[in-house]
Structure formats: C-alpha cells, structure tokens
C-alpha cells in the first residue's frame, strides 16, 4: 500500500534529523546520504506499520539505527567508535532532540553570518562535496594539524555563538 500524504509529509519534515542521527554514527557525508536514502525506502515500505497516534521521529530513528548498522557493515566501514549501548543511548536521546535541533539550526544561520570572511571561506572549502581535509591542507600550504586546529577553533566559535544565541532567546 502506498504511503499516505501525511506520512510522506512527516518523512520530509524529519529528513534533517534523520540525517543528523545517521551522520553521528557514520561521520562520512557520502555514507550518510546513502544510508539516509536506504532508510527512507524502508520507512516508506513500513509506512503501514506506523501508528499515527505515536510520535514519528522515535519510530523513524529506530529504523535508521538498524539501517545505519547494516549499512556500515555492508560498506565495511565498521571501524566503529561506538559500542551497542552507546548507539542505543544516542538513538533514544536523538529522538527527543527535535525542538532543540531546530532552534540550533536557526541559530546556526545567524552565527554563520557573523563569521569573518576568512573563516567562512575555510568552511566553504571544508564542506564542499567530496572535500578531503588532507588535500585541502596541501592546497592551502598548511600542515594537517594546522588546518585541523583552525577548523576546531572555527567550530568552537560557532558552537559558542549558538549557545549564546539560544541563551539570549531564552531571556527575551
């Protein structure tokens, strides 16, 4: 039976959260995209099993977790940082992150606007599809460590900016 419009709307709405969860386990953009697609297919196949009286995201993340583990095994990329208990923790906690992540995403936009041009340019190069940090360092004439340090500082600034922005919103 084809998925209903409501189901497709939910699936569309939570793409970002599913991607973020999958990414937190695989840490590779291509693998994350592939596994997200596979997850979407499974979710669509299982649409009839979804109980519309319950929350969508926890159910979807459960399926995403299995798909991610299966995908990592299939891709033979199981140089796995996380054990099973940790994966379960992360899945449970990610399901409750929805409103927090949305607020952080909105704050991220503002924080990126505040970045100095040089930092922004570095991020553009770093997050280009297929960017490789080692090649990027060579192209910039930097050691890998020097580039990693720069990226770490920029990410740190963004995280601080997001935290500050959320705190300001809470006060206002």
């Amino acid at each position, binding site marked *: 039976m084809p998925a209903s419009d409501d189901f497709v709307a939910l699936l569309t709405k939570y793409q970002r959260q599913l*991607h973020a969860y999958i990414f937190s386990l695989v840490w590779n953009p291509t693998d994350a995209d592939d596994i997200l*697609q596979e997850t*979407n297919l499974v979710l669509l196949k299982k649409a009839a099993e979804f109980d519309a009286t319950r929350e969508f995201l926890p159910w979807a993340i459960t399926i995403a977790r299995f798909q991610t583990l299966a995908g990592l095994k299939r891709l033979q990329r199981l140089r796995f940082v*996380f054990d099973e208990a*940790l994966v379960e923790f992360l899945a449970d906690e990610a399901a409750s992150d929805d409103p927090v992540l949305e607020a952080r995403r909105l704050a991220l936009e503002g924080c990126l606007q505040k970045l100095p041009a040089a930092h922004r340019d570095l991020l*553009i190069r770093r997050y280009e*599809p297929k960017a490789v940090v080692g090649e990027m360092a060579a192209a910039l004439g930097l050691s890998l460590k020097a580039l990693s340090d720069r990226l*770490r500082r920029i990410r740190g600034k963004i995280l601080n900016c997001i935290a500050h922005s959320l705190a300001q919103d809470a006060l206002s």
Partner: protein
Amino acid sequence: MTSRATPSANTLPQHEHDELLRLLNALADGSLAEAEEQRLREILHRGEHARRLFREFAALHAGLYWDYAILLAPRRQPPSDRNGRGGGWWLPINRAAAIVAAVVGVATLAAWLLVAIPTGPLAVVTQARFLLPADGKQPLTIGQSLEAGKITLLGGVVELTLRNGVVIVFEGPGELDLAGELAATLYDGNVVIRMPKGMNGFVVQTPATDVLDLGTEFAVSVGAGKTTDVQVYDGAVITSTHRRREAGGPSQRLDAGEAARFSAESNAETVPMFFRPERFVRALPSDVGIPYPAAAMKRDEVRHFGPARNAAITVYRAPAGMAIDGRLGEWTDRPGFSGTRDGTAACAEWADGRMMYDEKFLYIAAHVGDPLPLRSIIDPEIDGAWGWRGGSVQVRVSTDRQMGWPARGNGSSYYMQRLITPSPEDEERARNPGLAHLTMWFHAPTQTPCLTINDGMQFANSITNPTGFVGAFIPDADGKGYTMEYAIPWSLLGCGDDPPQRGDVLAAVWQVIWADDAGRVRREQMVEIRNPDEPLQINVWERAATWGRAEYR
C-alpha cells in the same frame, strides 16, 4: 553535613568538555587515532551531558554539509520591499532556493530569501554585438536597465552586469529568464556566468540540470533536445540533473578545466566532454558594442528574414564524373541564384548558389563573398547542431515527392510564438523526414569540411559528418570569400530509393551566414529561394511553406 561532589550525568568537567571537543574535531576531520577512539567512548559513557555535546557537534558537522548553501549565501542584509514589487521579485529567488535545496540537500530557504536586496535595476546591458531580438521585442541597447524577466535573442551576444557584480554573457539564439541576482533559467542558447571575487551561489537552471556556482566562471549551453553542456573555466560548480535529483541521487562536481553534457532524457547518463576554452563567448571587447537603434527596425526585418530576391532555383542534372574539389569546374552553364546581403552591388557579403543532382547525390555549390572567410571554430564533434553559427551555408530541401510544392510543416517555435496549439496533423507534418536541413561549414581548427543533417521541422535525428558525403572549400585568392562544393547522398536524406526526378518541383531554401572574426558568433545572414506568397516575417527554419521552388531539370 558535608557532601562530596561527584560528576553527575548532567555535568561535564571543563577539561573533559574541551577534550571531548578536540576528539570530535579529530573524528570529523578523519584524524582520530585508535587510542583516542577508546577515550571518546569512555567520555560518552559518562553521561547524557557528554552525549548531548556529542549530538550538538555532530548536528553542526552534518548541518554544514546539509545546509551547505547557507555558507555560500552572501551576507544577509535587512529585507526591503523597495518599489513595491517584492512579490514578483522574491518568488524566483525562492524557487532558486528550492533548486539549491535539491542540489545540495538544503531545506532552509530563509537565508536564500534574504540574500538579494533590490537597490537599483537588476541588470544593465553593458555590451552587445550583432543582436537580433525576437519578433515583436524591443531591441536591447547598451546602458539599458533590465528587471527580472525573459530575454529572447534570435542572434548575437549581449553582456549583462547585475547589480551585485555578476556578469552574464548571453549568446543567442536562445531564451534566458533572469530571475534575480543569483538565479536564471536558460531555456536555449549559451551563457557564461562570471562571479565577482569572493561571491558565489549563482544557480543556472536548464531543462536538464541545475548548475550551482562555487565562486567561479562557468558556461552553460542548452541545445537540441534540451541537452545541457556545462564547462568550468575557473573555480567549480555543482550540477544536479533533474532525473538524478528526483531519484535522490548525488550531485556532481565539475572543476576548472572540466566539461560535461547532461541530457533531459530520463534514462540518459551524464557524458564527460573535452574542455574547449574557445567554445563560448566569455567577454565582449568594449570597443565593438553596437547599439541597436529602434529606427533600424525596418532594416532589421531584412536582417531577420531576408528578403529573398529569388523564388526558385533550377536543380540541373549533374554531368558524369563530378569531382568534389571546390573548384566548381562542372558548374559552368548551370546557374543558380546570385545576390548580395543587403541588395547593394557594393556589399562585401554576397553569394552565388547552385544545385545539381543525379541518381545518388544532391550536389550543392556556392561562391560566397565573406570578408572573414572560413574561420568557424564550431566543433563538429560536440556542436554540430550549432554548425551554422560560425559562418556557413544552410540549404533546406524537401525530398517528399508526394507532397510536392509548397512544402508543409511548422516547427514548434512557430506555434509557440503565435500562441497556436498545433493539431495532431500539424505535429505529424512537423515530423516529416522528407524535410531536411543541411548545414555546411568549414571547421578551421581541423581544416575539415563539415555537414550536419536534421530532419523534420523539429530538427530531429541530428547527425554531423555522416559517412558518405564529400565536401570541399577553397578560399578566394584575395581573402574575401570562398567556394564550397558538396555531394550529399540521397540515402542520407532518407530517399535513396526514391530520389527526386527530372520534372519534379520540390521545396528548397538557402541561408548564407556570416560570422564574427573569431568564427563563433553569427553576424549577418541572407535568405534566398523563398516562397513570395508567404509573409516575410517568418523564419524559414520554422515553416516549410516559406521555402521556394527547386525545379529539377
């Protein structure tokens, strides 16, 4: 009572917080050592606070991939509704955002909705050359301001400078829909987009693909069958075909020096192409801009459509032993037509065209006056459909003996421009393979005589340099013209078993096209052998009834 402070599930000592961030950065950038993995696991098991920081960092890292276009968006300024025309102006930007969203996985449109603030005309015409505007359209002039909307050219090149500094060089014939400072749709023709230093994010949408600029100079061409060619001169672009996007597939990156062809067909694959830097007009010299005075419209009608001075051409029986060498020795006493481009005897652009036939071949010969002869750089391997552009002779012939003369059949543009819906019979006539379009040119870089054949009024089944034809060009000794001679098998025109016979009157029309000094841009044209009963303001390539009489003797 005293109590001893112990780390709870919801707190994380500062040093562990810092250490966790260091480890996560190493994980993100692929430099996490095995021992560090173990340490990361330990910290994450400590409690929810560590895992929340982990999820926040992972969401940031994933989000920068997912929301990559936010990084590319120019710095945001406060929105305004200047000129009270916000709605019509913002919508295309919104659409562009949706395109970008599809290309790089962006769901956030807000940043894109705010990226471009109207502070003057959207674009100014900064250069123009050999412009031929479409029917009924006012010609563009240098210095003219433009707002969002469609620009249609039948020929020539125009350079637009957008208010954010983006330069667009648009080469006709074609149609470009300028949507905003960072978005345009190319339906037909060529564009080169050049971004100001430090800016990126321009999206060109075509019937086959979307092209997102990453700070660069790149060219996009939409040609026959709505295929899209993309060539990157500098920087990089991300491309995503509509087919691939619908299938949820990945986008593709092209870097400087790379080129590819994308098809609008649902089952076609992307094809890598050779990088040909000379293929596109990237800039127009500032001293050759030619304003297009409105008073010249009457003259421009002539430039568009003719006028032809001859309504018929005799197609003579060819003598035995034809030698296709460009010397035209066999053509004595077999006259065709003669004329100059503007009808004056002093005009340096003129043509003397002739036709012959036998059981196996159609023979075409011409002596063309051309101050810039035989310079075409239009590459037959990749741009055969545009072979006319760099200087050429085009002959359109009907081989449909049953239809006779006048020929019938109109191209889709004929109906579209006149807001007419073709009937099924009209569409069938437009597919008549007995209507053939022959484009003959000399490819200067390889010194090769070239031929492209299309059939029907939809220019189907395009084939370039097919086996079996012979062509030859010879430049005039004074450097002001050339002769050309071709033998084209009837079998290539689909009538090998029923070629035209003595006494037949079929349809044919000639176009001679002169190009710029680079052999790339169509400059002027002349039409000959045209049906005088048809109105002048119809392009011969879109209506077969405009073709004159080819009388086989």
